[in-house]
């Protein structure tokens, strides 16, 4: 899954769903929804990578993650020429890929020897916390998070783990409404 999907949050979420015995439809739906944000990353990086040939863009698309997006976006546009930017993105993306695959392998080899009482599954939740807390800035994002959390709790017993879909839809709607209200 690390090689095919290459996306942390979707992989963690799908693993948790598999452990909970969720059906295949729920897995695909969850993975797709969690990775929907990549459409936006794709849109946002497109202007700065416009000089790259189509083949390179197809390759970089495979490497596109939250981290790559963050690192490449953090570079001021003037700091790199168009071709340097392509190489920079490929270098960052390639390093992230190698590290991710190596860590996955280490997990496969060592994972089954680690007892369940160590609660290492909690690291997935903690990683999400570390990623989401900086995102909850401003009224609209806070509204999105709060509504999403409330719906997730209220809808916890929905079949197919559809609560996740319901919560995200409600959260996004709340964010858009709060933003419209503020301006």
């Amino acid at each position: 899954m690390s090689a095919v999907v290459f996306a942390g949050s979707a992989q963690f979420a799908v693993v948790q769903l598999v452990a909970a015995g969720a059906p295949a439809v729920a897995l695909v739906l969850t993975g797709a929804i969690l990775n929907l944000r990549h459409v936006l990353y794709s849109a946002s990086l497109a202007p700065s990578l416009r000089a790259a040939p189509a083949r390179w863009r197809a390759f970089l698309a495979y490497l596109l993650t939250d981290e790559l997006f963050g690192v490449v976006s953090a570079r001021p546009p003037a700091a790199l020429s168009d071709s340097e930017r392509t190489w920079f993105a490929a270098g960052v993306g390639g390093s992230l890929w190698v590290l991710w695959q190596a860590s996955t392998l280490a997990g496969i080899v060592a994972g089954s020897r680690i007892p369940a009482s160590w609660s290492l599954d909690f690291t997935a939740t903690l990683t999400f916390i570390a990623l989401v807390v900086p995102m909850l800035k401003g009224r609209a994002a806070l509204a999105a998070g709060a509504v999403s959390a409330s719906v997730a709790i209220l809808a916890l017993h929905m079949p197919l783990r559809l609560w996740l879909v319901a919560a995200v839809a409600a959260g996004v709607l709340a964010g858009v409404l709060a933003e419209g209200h503020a301006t």
Partner: protein
Amino acid sequence: MTSSVALFLSIVCIGAVTYLMRLSLLALHGRLRLPGAVERALRYVPAAALTALVVPALVAPAGSLEFARSNARLWAGILAVMVAWRTRSVVLTLAVGMGTLWVLSLWMH
């Protein structure tokens, strides 16, 4: 339980969908523009999705709501949120969260 064939197919599907989404606007840039409203809405997807994963994992670790004092994950999670908020550090958040969970579960047994 999902069979291993279904699981494999699901993973391939997720990979394909993810790749197409990543490629979508990189490849179509200049030929297609997302409506502004869609673009604004997409901005809230990460915050909403991650919160929806975190909160139930803390308040209902075993599948049903659990606000009891014995829910160690809830306390460890609240502390982790504070650490993440103050430090923005993934490593510190993980260290404090896991440390709290271990200490609490030792103490409660």
